[in-house]
């Protein structure tokens, strides 16, 4: 995607009149934005509503009259929420770094060392990327159990790379491909080893790719649900998505306030990281679907 092509693709839209553009562009866009963002607003407003306002059909539900921090307080002090937060953070960071390391080595080997059979390995990595966790979790649960990892953080740290490594490797292969071969040849002539080439030439040039892959991998592990639901059962080692879904729902009484506060707080860290690295995230996402 070259830069010149990306600018002003709208071409001749200046021919359009302002009122027409308002109806055909801004109005639909406003509706899209409203629908896409409303659930977040709703999460936020519900987290600060006292129970009597939550369970009343009178008044204006879109606003809160007496905001309260009771739900957040309950979440932070009466539940294991802080522990879930810590677990999610720990598992996401460790599995992201482990996967990134393995992926850098693998991508370099496939793309640049071109060992015998590298093409087939590259294809296998792509196919691994297409294996959905929901067809893998049952046998994987039995593997985790056999290895004695059931109900430990290791179960998650070691299984998340099954979807992170294929994704990161695939993305990094694309980045490494864009680095000119000549750089590497010069270094080889000057007597650099492959390891030196990787750490001193390729990696510094691939920093944007590393950030893209890292951000994407972090959000993927933060959002992971089915493995965390299946492989962990003790409350103190659950992750946020699983903890909120399984522990905050007690019988038929739904504590909507603290449920929404839990959902909101659990979404904030990824939204925060994302807001700093939007461009990297988008290029990671679009890169992941490119051949």
């Amino acid at each position: 995607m070259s830069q010149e092509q990306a600018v002003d693709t709208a071409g001749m839209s200046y021919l359009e009149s302002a009122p027409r553009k308002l109806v055909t562009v801004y109005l639909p866009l406003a509706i899209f934005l409203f629908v896409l963002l409303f659930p977040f607003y709703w999460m936020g407003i519900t987290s600060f509503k006292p129970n009597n306002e939550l369970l009343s059909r009178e008044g204006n539900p879109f606003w809160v009259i007496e905001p309260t921090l009771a739900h957040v307080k309950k979440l932070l002090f009466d539940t294991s929420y802080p522990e879930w937060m810590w677990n999610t953070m720990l598992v996401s960071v460790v599995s992201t770094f482990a996967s990134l390391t393995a992926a850098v080595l693998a991508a370099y080997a496939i793309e640049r060392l071109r060992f015998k059979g590298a093409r087939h390995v590259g294809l296998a990595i792509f196919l691994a990327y297409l294996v959905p966790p929901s067809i893998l979790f049952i046998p994987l649960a039995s593997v985790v159990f056999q290895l004695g990892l059931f109900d430990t953080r290791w179960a998650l740290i070691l299984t998340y790379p099954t979807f992170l490594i294929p994704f990161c490797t695939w993305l990094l292969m694309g980045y490494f491909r864009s680095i000119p071969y000549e750089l590497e040849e010069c270094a080889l002539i000057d007597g650099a080893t492959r390891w030196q080439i990787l750490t001193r030439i390729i990696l510094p040039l691939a920093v944007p790719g590393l950030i893209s892959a890292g951000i994407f991998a972090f959000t993927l592990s933060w959002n992971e649900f089915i493995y965390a639901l299946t492989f962990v059962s003790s409350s103190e080692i659950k992750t946020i998505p699983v903890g909120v879904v399984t522990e905050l729902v007690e019988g038929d009484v739904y504590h909507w306030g603290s449920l929404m506060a839990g959902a909101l707080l659990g979404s904030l860290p990824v939204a925060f990281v994302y807001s700093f690295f939007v461009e990297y995230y988008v290029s990671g996402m679009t890169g992941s679907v490119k051949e």
Partner: protein
Amino acid sequence: MLDKLQNNRNALGLVFMLPAAVLLLLFLTYPLGLGVWLGFTDTKVGRPGQWVGLENYAFLLEDQVTRLALFNTLFYTTIASVLKFFLGLWLALLLNRNLRFKTFFRAVILLPYIVPTALSAIAFWWIFDSQFSIISWALTKMGLINAYIDFLGEPWNARWSVIAANVWRGVPFVAITLLAGLQTISPSYYEASAIDGATPWQQFRHVTLPLLTPIIAVVMTFSVLFTFTDFQLIYVITRGGPLNATHLMATLSFQRAISGGALGEGAAISIAMVPFLLAAIMVSYFGLQRRAWQQGGGDK
């Protein structure tokens, strides 16, 4: 010895592949094979199974709940993917105009895709609540309905509700990736066709769409794969209810294998999804090949 390793591409390649290969073989390839094997056994939690051949599959073929789950999965995947495609394409075309704050719009639109699905699903659960649903409240105030809608208590309502949640989550992905595709189309095509008197619809039909087809095929393949194997939304919003009306293959396999302990049967349900996934991949792969060939590309 170390020097020799440094210069042998095959040996060094093997060393570099080692960490990824060990993890993937142990936690991906082996479980995949194990899953196929489990599907042919009557394994229960805590009890090794006996080989029973196709018994699980024969049972599931006759099982009303499994048949319903298959229907639900196909219905859910078809409707949600079609909606995601049209809405996503529309949103991408809107974002491709020269707008103010375009970068901001693009960043905000992706939010539903990046926050944990299990957590946004809880928000939808609350939005679809039978007594306090904000949608029902708004519709009542507008005078469109008299009684609150039972979104998740009635089979067809529940099906459409979970589809709505899935579309909400998936549209940003489709829109942003298609937008990236749109931005690679050179404006000169539009200028040339406009000079030849093409209408906006003709431009879309004969310039945008053909050039966008490859990326549409890839994006929609991914979208179909993820929708077909969806688990979180259903597990959180309905747990497959009411009356199994929203059970998908993935949630049913979880219920049978993990909650019910019938690992063999659950594995068989998972494995039964594979042919459908392969079919989706094949359709898109061969579709793209045929297109490349039509456009003068050689046989690969």
